[in-house]
């Protein structure tokens, strides 16, 4: 069992997945762009993006998933404008984003806009084919009266994840007309639990994932200071206390590598990543490194793209040599962020 980071093994694991995803990934067909983002961004963190032989194929594929306004009646599907998870609706491959007829049931999903845009950015695309106005207009239909966001039009679950996606998309497009920021901030603040961390919604249990989404959303909106100072102190303490060797996502749960990013990045954005024991983070993550490449959530489990990506990001935050620095607010390397750079300076 290696005690150091085996970068080449991870690169091969990722390239293998980019080549073909096994049948068991059928259940992620409706989350495919997100899956691709974990893989592509991981390669970027590893400094191995050049191993993708045909990046233009990726760019074309992602652009073909953009949902544009209907060519004859742009108001007909305005609420669906945005991005698909995969071609499962049966839309024709349209990488040039040519005007086309759109169907009323061809649904936008806000997470796919977020991860789709990030893939484009990482691969060096300039967003010239992105229909910003259509996206921000479609986004409006997703925000609820309590300030939270659902993810698809026509009704879905609503929680902290999608506020983050909406903020990240708005930040990337430099257009905040799709969000009522005050309402969003209200929802976030009302989701701070008695423990100090942030839950998926008011009165739910404080959780590492929702804490990241809340903190990063506030950061991107430039509204971190809306957290009252005493609450901020509690939040910092809650995050630090989630480190048990690796990190747990909630009090009394077992450690899981993905929280090395969710919690690590939250603390980074709050200015206090240095309060963590980085040697212990590395020790736990490396114990979850798979012999075939990739990382799993805990030792001796199967590796997957999400935990691979999150573990690499968590290690990078801890200062691991040979990994790209992470823009914690947006969710890609600083190299990819470039001029956008959302993270506060270290």
């Amino acid at each position, binding site marked *: 069992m290696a005690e150091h980071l085996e970068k080449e093994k991870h690169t091969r694991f990722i390239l293998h997945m980019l080549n073909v995803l096994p049948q068991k990934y059928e259940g992620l067909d409706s989350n495919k762009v997100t899956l691709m983002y974990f893989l592509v961004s991981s390669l970027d963190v590893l400094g191995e993006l050049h191993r993708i032989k045909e990046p233009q194929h990726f760019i074309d594929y992602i652009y073909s998933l953009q949902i544009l306004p209907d060519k004859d009646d742009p108001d007909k599907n305005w609420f669906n404008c945005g991005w698909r998870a995969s071609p499962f609706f049966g839309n024709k491959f349209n990488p040039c984003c040519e005007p086309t007829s759109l169907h009323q*049931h061809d649904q936008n999903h806000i997470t796919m806009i977020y991860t789709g845009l990030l893939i484009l950015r990482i691969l060096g695309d300039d967003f010239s084919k992105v229909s910003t106005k259509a996206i921000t207009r479609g986004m409006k239909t997703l925000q609820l009266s309590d300030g939270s966001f659902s993810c698809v039009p026509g009704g879905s679950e609503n929680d902290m994840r999608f506020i983050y996606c909406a903020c990240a998309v708005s930040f990337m497009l430099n257009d905040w007309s799709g969000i009522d920021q005050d309402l969003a901030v209200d929802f976030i603040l009302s989701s701070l639990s008695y423990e100090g961390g942030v839950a998926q919604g008011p009165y*739910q249990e404080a959780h590492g994932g929702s804490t990241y989404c809340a903190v990063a959303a506030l950061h991107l909106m430039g509204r971190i200071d809306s957290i009252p100072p005493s609450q901020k102190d509690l939040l910092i303490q809650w995050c630090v206390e989630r480190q048990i060797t690796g990190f747990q996502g909630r009090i009394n749960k077992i450690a899981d590598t993905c929280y090395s990013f969710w919690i690590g990045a939250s603390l980074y954005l709050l200015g206090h990543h240095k309060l963590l024991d980085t040697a212990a983070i590395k020790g736990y993550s490396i114990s979850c490194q798979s012999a075939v490449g990739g990382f799993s959530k805990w030792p001796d489990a199967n590796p997957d793209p999400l935990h691979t990506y999150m573990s690499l990001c968590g290690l990078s935050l801890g200062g691991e040599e040979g990994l790209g620095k992470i823009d914690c607010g947006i969710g890609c390397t600083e190299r990819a962020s470039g001029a956008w750079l959302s993270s506060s300076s270290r």
Partner: protein
Amino acid sequence: RMTDDTFIPFADRPLWSDVTPILQDEGPNPVCPIAYSAQFADTMNYFRAIMHRDEKSERALQLTAEVIQVNSANYTAWYYRRLILDALKYDLSKELDYITEIGRTNPKNYQIWQHRKVVVDKSRNATQELAFTASMLEEDSKNYHAWAHRQWVIETFNLWSEELNYTDSLLRQDLRNNSAWNQRYFVISKHFSLSEDKIRDEIQYAISYIKKAPNNQSPWAYLKGLFKGRKYADFPELKTTLVEFKDKYVTCPHILSLLIDVLSEEGGDENTKTAKQYCAELAERLDSIHAKYWKYRAQRI
């Protein structure tokens, strides 16, 4: 997931003979292709066809169930299913049975819990919900979706009366179940408005659980949470108890942690000095993985 052995290709089903399947178009250079099974591809081909013609029939409803079987996370399948349920004025009690059956085998699927919420809301029938969430929590006592659904049901249908007892029964089984502690906080906040009487009761409750397992962080977080918007000084018995615990449970970091908060509120030179000593003890001995935090904390006192 294995291909269902009872699966009949759609081309062999007379009911579907009038429908032309629509294939997925991945373009000339597919990226990250998923190795779909024949069942998956076939089912999706017909689902695409049905959606494109906006058909909302019995057979379409059954088809959404087959899509859900191959990919229960396909949000468009759930959305479309709901359109059909409306169009057919489908019996929602039957739908509740369906979603219950699917929910048991997919306990962490967001779309299934959301669909359940919609069905319960539309039918205004919450009679099964406490029992259902309780049975899901028996399988996994910290299932986040189950707790969220339970909170929604309780609030929407005013089902508060037994909830504190329910959390108590869970805590007797596992006093480290942080979700149950959180649920307790939910009830005393929303139903009891954090009244002073209730707070006093809950302080005693938390302390009783601390005595059972002093290193269990949940009751400590809960205890601290009870003081939101209140002063430790208003409950002097807390400090007395903490000082007593400090000498009794010598390896427990949470006692010193809370004492630091209490002393910081009290203020004064002696207290500041003591609090900083506690920070040092935590950093060096009792909570060394968080050493950097305690050193930082000491500077801020």
